[in-house]
């Protein structure tokens, strides 16, 4: 199965769990509610995990955050008014928890940087934590050179995404990576629809500019007629 097929199936699952009848079962609790919750976890766990992991990089941290998100969902369901999609609410919870972890890491890094100035060395554990996302793709029908070039471009793209900074990175990950609608992203991040559009365009432009710089190409808009 291709990544696209898999994503489409996941998207379909997401639509199912957003149905009003399903949400009503969840809110009602009891044995049926428990079964509905299990269905919710099975339908959304993979995608939420990927979302959190892309933000945090570390699988263990991501799993911890995802567990906390599902716990928060379980506890918060009685108060869930259904003003937004269930999955939008879940992504909001995940986003807040990811921000908490990143803020905690930033505080730790400040402490670490203080320590580094004293010792002048970076611990091995920290070096190992600097992960570059890889690319897994095979295309046996393409000529080897084309496959090589495509893999290089895709690898650079993945690295460029990892380097995006907020707020563009949040908008890009929710809109392009997770496939949420512009309206959902605007609601989650408290932005106008126009701001989502601007941030998304900027993020894509940053990715392209970063990749082109590494490919030795001139930036967009600096061509023949610039």
């Amino acid at each position, binding site marked *: 199965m291709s990544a696209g097929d898999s994503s489409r199936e996941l998207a379909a699952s997401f639509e199912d769990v957003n149905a009003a009848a399903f949400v009503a079962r969840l809110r009602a609790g009891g044995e049926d509610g428990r079964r509905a919750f299990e269905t919710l976890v099975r339908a959304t766990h993979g995608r939420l995990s990927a979302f959190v992991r892309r933000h945090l990089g570390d699988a263990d941290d991501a799993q911890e955050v995802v567990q906390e998100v599902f716990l928060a969902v379980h506890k918060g369901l009685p108060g869930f008014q259904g003003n937004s999609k269930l999955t939008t609410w879940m992504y909001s919870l995940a986003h807040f928890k990811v921000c908490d972890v990143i803020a905690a890491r930033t505080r730790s890094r400040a402490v670490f940087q203080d320590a580094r100035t004293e010792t002048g060395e970076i611990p091995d554990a920290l070096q190992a934590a600097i992960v570059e996302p*890889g690319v897994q793709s095979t295309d046996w029908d393409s000529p080897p050179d084309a496959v090589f070039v495509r893999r290089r471009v895709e690898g650079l793209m993945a690295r460029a995404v990892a380097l995006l900074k907020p707020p563009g990175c949040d908008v890009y990950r929710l809109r392009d990576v997770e496939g949420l609608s512009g309206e959902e992203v605007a609601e989650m991040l408290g932005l106008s629809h126009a701001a989502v559009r601007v941030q998304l365009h900027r993020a894509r432009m940053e990715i392209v500019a970063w990749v082109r710089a590494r490919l030795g190409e001139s930036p967009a808009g600096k061509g023949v007629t610039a």
Partner: protein
Amino acid sequence: MNRLMSPVFYPCAKIPDFTYDYLENRLPVTTLVRFRAHLSLCKGCAEFVRLYRLAADPVRFLEETPVPPDLIERTLEFVENNGKR
């Protein structure tokens, strides 16, 4: 005279401004014609749009991390143990 310098064609600097709407199929017809005419003559901008299109479709290049099967069971167990409401 370079055909790209003709007033009929957009300058390269304008191409990024239109690319978002181009991918969303929201360019007015006249703009779309001029945009495509530019791309047909300008290899650099055509390459830019190709990369922009790829950036907008990260499923094609981001690794999808498989979730170990026991993680779902562990999550359900975690919520069961901690989530009495």
